[in-house]
């Protein structure tokens, strides 16, 4: 925008009559003064962003090309090693596995949170007695701290004294108790369940806001045309909700890429690394194996994935604005 203004104004400098030129200089001066205020207002933010975000990211990028085995220091310090760290990441065997686990984790939890959130939103959009109470209750999982959530679920998942085994045994769904977080067949799914439980209220509330924004006249028109409840949902609700849905969906994906606490507290990435999502892979490479170079290289892969989805999100929100 500014570039445009500048390029529009520059040529007029030579041709403008004197009176107008004075006006131009005055406006230019005002703009400068205005901009000075702008830069003063933005300076602390720029400083903080630069120091605590951009600088560390650039440092990580640099480290991904350097030798950083902290446990095995060499006299040269941290020499450049080219793409060695990236090769080590891809060779480790666990990285690709971890990537697969991450994608499965994102796919399953995002779809389930979205579906459950949608069900909650549709329900809470119907006027009924006690709706306010139900809405307040549904928000609870969102409000509970991550670590606390994990601890409660560790207790409920317990092999011997867990309430989940107790209930499923009583209902004859299981014949033997299961150590949900301890067995490699179930651990990832158990972690996903916790994520879905904790995350569905957010999706629900965002979608509810979207639902409430749909004009009532659309439903009335559909009723006049004799549409059934389901038909209205498909022909009116779903298309109207599309912009919000895309945004909620992308936000869920972006936040799930960042996920660390839930899985880390529940399983620590185990048993036998079956729940090792990418963030845990990086954390372990850094703070368990103390190979900061390897961790940074793996981090660059994570960076690329989040940038891709963030760009998609930016495009989606822009589209939402113009619509």
């Amino acid at each position, binding site marked *: 925008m500014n570039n445009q203004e500048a390029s529009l104004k520059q040529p007029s400098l030579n041709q403008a009559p004197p009176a107008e030129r004075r006006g131009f200089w005055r406006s230019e001066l005002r703009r400068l003064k205005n901009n000075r205020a702008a830069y003063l207002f933005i300076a602390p933010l720029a400083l903080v962003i630069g120091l605590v975000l951009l600088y560390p990211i650039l440092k990580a990028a640099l480290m991904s090309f350097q030798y950083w085995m902290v446990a095995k220091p060499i006299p040269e310090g941290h020499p450049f090693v080219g793409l060695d760290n990236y090769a080590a990441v891809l060779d480790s065997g666990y990285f690709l596995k971890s990537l697969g686990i991450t994608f499965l984790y994102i796919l399953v939890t995002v779809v389930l949170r979205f579906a459950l959130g949608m069900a909650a939103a549709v329900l809470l959009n119907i006027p009924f007695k006690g709706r306010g109470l139900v809405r307040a209750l549904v928000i609870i999982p969102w409000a509970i701290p991550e670590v606390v959530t994990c*601890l409660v679920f560790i207790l409920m998942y317990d092999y011997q004294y867990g309430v989940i085994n107790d209930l499923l045994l009583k209902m004859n769904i299981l014949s033997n108790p299961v150590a949900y977080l301890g067995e490699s067949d179930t651990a990832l799914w158990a972690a996903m369940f916790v994520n879905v*439980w904790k995350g569905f209220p957010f999706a629900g509330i965002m979608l509810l806001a979207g639902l409430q924004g749909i004009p009532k006249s659309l439903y009335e028109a559909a009723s006049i045309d004799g549409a059934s409840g389901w038909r209205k949902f498909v022909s009116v609700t779903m298309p109207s909700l599309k912009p919000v849905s895309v945004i909620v969906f992308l936000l869920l994906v972006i936040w799930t890429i960042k996920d660390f*606490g839930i899985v880390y507290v529940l399983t620590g990435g185990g048993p036998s690394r079956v729940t090792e999502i990418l963030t845990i892979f990086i954390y372990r490479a850094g703070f368990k194996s103390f190979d*900061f170079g390897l961790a940074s290289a793996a981090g660059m892969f994570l960076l690329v994935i989040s940038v891709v989805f963030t760009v998609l999100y930016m495009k989606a929100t822009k589209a939402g604005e113009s619509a």
Partner: protein
Amino acid sequence: MRTKNMPLVYIAAVLLSLFAVAPFIWMILTSIKPQAEIYSKPLSYLPNELNLQGYKSMLDVRADANLNFIQWFKNTAFVSLLTTVLSLVVSALGGYAMSRFRFRGRMTVGYVILLTQMLPGSLLIIPLYLIMKDYHLLNSYFGLVIAYATVAVPFCTWMLKGYFDSVSTAIDEAASIDGAGRWTTFVKVILPLTLPGLVVTAVFSFLTSWNEFMFAQTFITDYDKWTLSVGIASFQGQYVVNWDYLMAGSVLTTLPIVIAFWLLQKHLVSGMTAGAVK
């Protein structure tokens, strides 16, 4: 059409509510059950006897050498408060500039903020760790505040820019005609008008810091400098888990947040949806 399906609606509402609150209820029930009942077979769901030992140990400093709940509570409150205040100052200034001024690099700042908001913390944690080691900020509250700022500042800026955008620029112009400078306009006119937005943003930033786990667990090694998340997570790794203690600690950690959520429910929800859906 609605009356016909009403019983179905109520059944769904009850099921959904149960699903949402069951773990929360289980946490409270376990926190007041005697240990014998927690480990009983068959499992007793409701406590037959009341046991407040867990709460007593949490709130009494001398009860157990392995926990220092009050200290952790204070640490967490201090770090969260400092993060919130500092982030809010920086973000309010920056957000106002983003909303009101057209300056070179405005779009770039906007993109950087949105991008950094989406960045995984596990990417930042290694460089931040090394930087903090160099500046002796490991194991200090101030270092933790800096780490939390990486999350809070982009988030608050984005939220506050949205709130400033919702105030008409005609108000700025009117103030400027009355002779108010940019600074006076911002402090005396715009900030009071966006006070609800500032409160919502502050609460969100506070809660995020209150709940944070990864940075705190990596950067703080001294046991009495831990935050609540790290403290209560540490019980779980011990060979004997006292679930009544653990759940009492969990309830006390959660209570301030659930109360804050309920009190501010309407504003939080509208703030969140406005920030992200708009």
